[in-house]
């Protein structure tokens, strides 16, 4: 695309990634969560794809796949944390450690350090969706044509 599109894309991509990170980080307090934030962050990959073309993003393919694998592994490991009680037991909720503060009951102003394993799973699923969607889009850009090599 033209130099205007490429310049605006360079400016906008960090903003989009930051907004996706915000949606993931506050997933247990405000509307949003891992899927939505990951989809928002993956739209940055779509913008790069439109602005710079698929061949220049070829080296982005394997990092995105690795990101998806890491997100999935982190999700399963976090689910196994509570295996002492049951699979997917929220072990960290109310334990006082990282994200371990107990949430106030009823309407509140929202405290970031609550939620137990839920925010960590938000991050895992967010990275997983970012990697999966970005990899699919880059694959379509690279190999989606009829006669491209």
């Amino acid at each position: 695309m033209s130099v205007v599109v490429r310049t605006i894309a360079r400016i906008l991509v960090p903003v989009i990634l930051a907004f996706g990170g915000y949606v993931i980080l506050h997933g247990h307090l405000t509307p949003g969560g891992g899927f939505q934030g990951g989809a928002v962050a993956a739209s940055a990959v779509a913008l790069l794809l439109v602005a710079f073309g698929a061949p220049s993003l070829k080296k982005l393919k394997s990092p995105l796949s690795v990101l998806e694998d890491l997100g999935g592994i982190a999700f399963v490991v976090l689910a196994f944390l509570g295996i002492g009680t049951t699979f997917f037991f929220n072990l960290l909720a109310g334990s006082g450690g990282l994200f371990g503060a107990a949430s106030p009951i009823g309407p509140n102003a929202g405290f970031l350090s609550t939620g137990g394993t839920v925010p960590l799973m938000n991050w895992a699923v967010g990275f997983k969706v970012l990697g999966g969607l970005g990899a699919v889009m880059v694959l379509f850009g690279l190999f989606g044509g009829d006669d491209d090599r």
Partner: protein
Amino acid sequence: MRRWTVLAAFVIVAGSLLLGGARMRPFGAPRHDLMDRYFNAWSQTEAATSNVVTAIVFDYRGYDTLGEATVLFTAVIGVALVLRRLKR
């Protein structure tokens, strides 16, 4: 002939769907909401999460999310396998 059969089937399906939508229970008054009232009342105590939907997705019904993550993974692998070109 075949086209008219498909059209008749479509008309039957359309009639039943529209009738079922119009004759459903009143909008805004769900009947079986015991589980949802439990989630709304206890998600802040059990999962320490103010967002009830996130508490359900990642805590109460984590198995669904695990299966969904598997589906996403499989879709990425499937797209990569279907679209790749073998070197000749």
